[in-house]
């Protein structure tokens, strides 16, 4: 295993930040392994993404604008990745640890007879040996797991685990041959809910609300302005998603998203274990809760015991003032 191959995930031409994080990290890993760093980008808008990737330190970007990628559920992506992997040879394949990233990784594992490590946050390289560092059991332990040298290895990598830096880009953009035309699972309809928002897993700041907010309105009137002031995104507990106050795509926790922002603010969330496992690795954790004994206090850097409805607007105001946007 010498080379590194990145799957550049995007949605019809809209990139994810993690793609650039992986493109940057691929260089570091390839240099330690003594090989090349490459990326694969396919589907409508792939050409534009390849251009955006060009400033990053890659050796090659394999690209195909095939619109069939958007017509079938992941099968074409898996085929293109397999094709690129066989061009590059035994390599470490970096896939973002997202909903579709996990689906792709499992299927590619079989196609390439590869080892796989999930939710990787760091790598250790010695010679050709690759060890992946990843939290397991909801962050209760951190494991170091080795891939077999000489074979394909797949790592699904947690967003926000690495820094993106656009420098030293000399990549050639190469056309991948077009894959098969038809597959069994056809996408009839693709609907975005909550468009234009910052992707939750990639946000540097997450302001999350729970049952304590009592309804959908406070997510709009309290949390959104605070998130906006801090340049972050809004998330939620399962109780809030179950109540229908926010879409499930905002749910954080064991059965929702895992987030690791630099700052996590939990508003009216008790801190159940299933919520905790989705956010405990955040940089700083602040909780606002009217109950001083809420479990969230046990893993927060700061717990403010009080009424969220009165504290949050004051806080947003203080931040806006400091930024010179006094109201």
């Amino acid at each position, binding site marked *: 295993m010498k080379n590194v191959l990145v799957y550049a995930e995007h*949605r019809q031409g809209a990139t994810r930040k993690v793609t650039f994080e992986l493109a940057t990290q691929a260089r570091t890993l390839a240099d330690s392994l003594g090989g090349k760093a490459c990326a694969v980008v396919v589907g409508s808008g792939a050409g534009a993404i390849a251009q955006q990737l060009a400033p990053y330190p890659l050796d090659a970007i394999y690209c195909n604008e095939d619109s069939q990628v958007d017509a079938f*559920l*992941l099968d074409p992506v*898996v085929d293109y990745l397999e094709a690129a992997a066989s061009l590059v040879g035994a390599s470490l394949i970096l896939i973002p640890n997202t*909903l579709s990233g*996990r*689906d792709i*990784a*499992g*299927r590619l*594992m*079989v*196609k390439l007879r590869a*080892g*796989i490590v*999930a939710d990787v946050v760091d790598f250790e390289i010695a010679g050709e040996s690759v*060890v992946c560092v990843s*939290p*397991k*059991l909801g962050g*209760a*332990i*951190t*494991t*170091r*797991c*080795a*891939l*077999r040298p000489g*074979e394909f290895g797949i790592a699904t990598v947690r967003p926000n685990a690495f820094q993106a830096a656009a420098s030293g880009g000399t990549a050639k953009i190469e056309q991948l041959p077009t894959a098969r035309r038809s597959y*069994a*699972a056809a*996408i*009839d309809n*693709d*609907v975005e*809910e*909550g468009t234009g928002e910052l992707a939750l897993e990639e946000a540097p*700041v997450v302001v999350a609300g729970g049952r304590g907010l009592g309804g959908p309105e406070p997510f709009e009137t309290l949390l959104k302005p605070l998130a906006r002031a801090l340049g972050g995104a809004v998330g939620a507990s399962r109780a809030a998603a179950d109540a229908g106050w926010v879409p*499930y*795509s905002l749910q954080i926790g*064991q*059965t929702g998203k895992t987030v690791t922002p630099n*700052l996590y*603010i939990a508003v009216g969330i008790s801190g159940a274990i299933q919520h905790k496992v989705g956010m405990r690795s955040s940089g*700083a*954790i*602040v909780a*606002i809760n009217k109950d001083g004994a809420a479990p969230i206090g046990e893993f927060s*850097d*700061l*717990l*403010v*015991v*009080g009424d969220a409805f009165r*504290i949050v607007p*004051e806080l947003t105001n*203080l*931040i806006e003032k*400091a930024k010179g946007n006094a109201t």
Partner: protein
Amino acid sequence: MKIVVTMKLVPDPNAEKKIDPQTKRLVRTGVETVLNPYDEYALEAGLQLKERVGGDTRVTIFSMAPDALKETLRRALAMGADDAAVLSDPALEGSDVWATAYAMAHALRRLEFDLLIVGGLTDDSSTGAVPGALAEHLGLPCITNARKIELADRTLTIERETDVGYQTVRAPLPALLTTALTFGEPRYASLKGIMGAKKKAIASIGLAELSLDSAVGSDGSKTEIESFAPPAARGQGKTVEAPDAAAGASAIFDFLRERKFV
């Protein structure tokens, strides 16, 4: 129609999880074994389909688990599954995702089915890679995160969650589905179900019957855990009582300043 639902047996999700430093595996002694909660949603989906399709539709549970734990599957039979098949063999111990999916796929091939329903994640080690791997081994269309399932003329129409919304996907049978938790809460077993489950069959499948051409267990795995450790501890947090909202807001503001978030 024949539906197979895969179920993993996991240590009680509410129990404290520990790893044996010698074997590097999860300590299961003293911890109750239960059905992986995510797989109960898969079973619910299978049972609802059975009710809708009717006729001679059967729901079979498949599990790869130590033989000693197989009675845990009675709960799934009590919920309404018709029978169960368990792949157990000491040689499977220590299998990683690759080896697990490989062995499961070979056993599943022997249970002929029209639809394979898999839970979205496992509670004890979630790589989320097994469903995709099974679909690839078995050559099935793979539709994950289903929250609504329609079936007509042997064609599935699935509403599935994505991380920005949802998609409608169409695929012919045979196929593999995974369920999202929004599919609907799993049912409880009725008293009649519990009584009836006692008579239902739990078949055992041994590795020898599968004539595998590669190893499983640790030897057949492509990854090896070298070490593990608890994560770096978070320092003791601070609690501020804020009966006065302004004081609460400025406590947070000062913290954000100190940490350079503003």
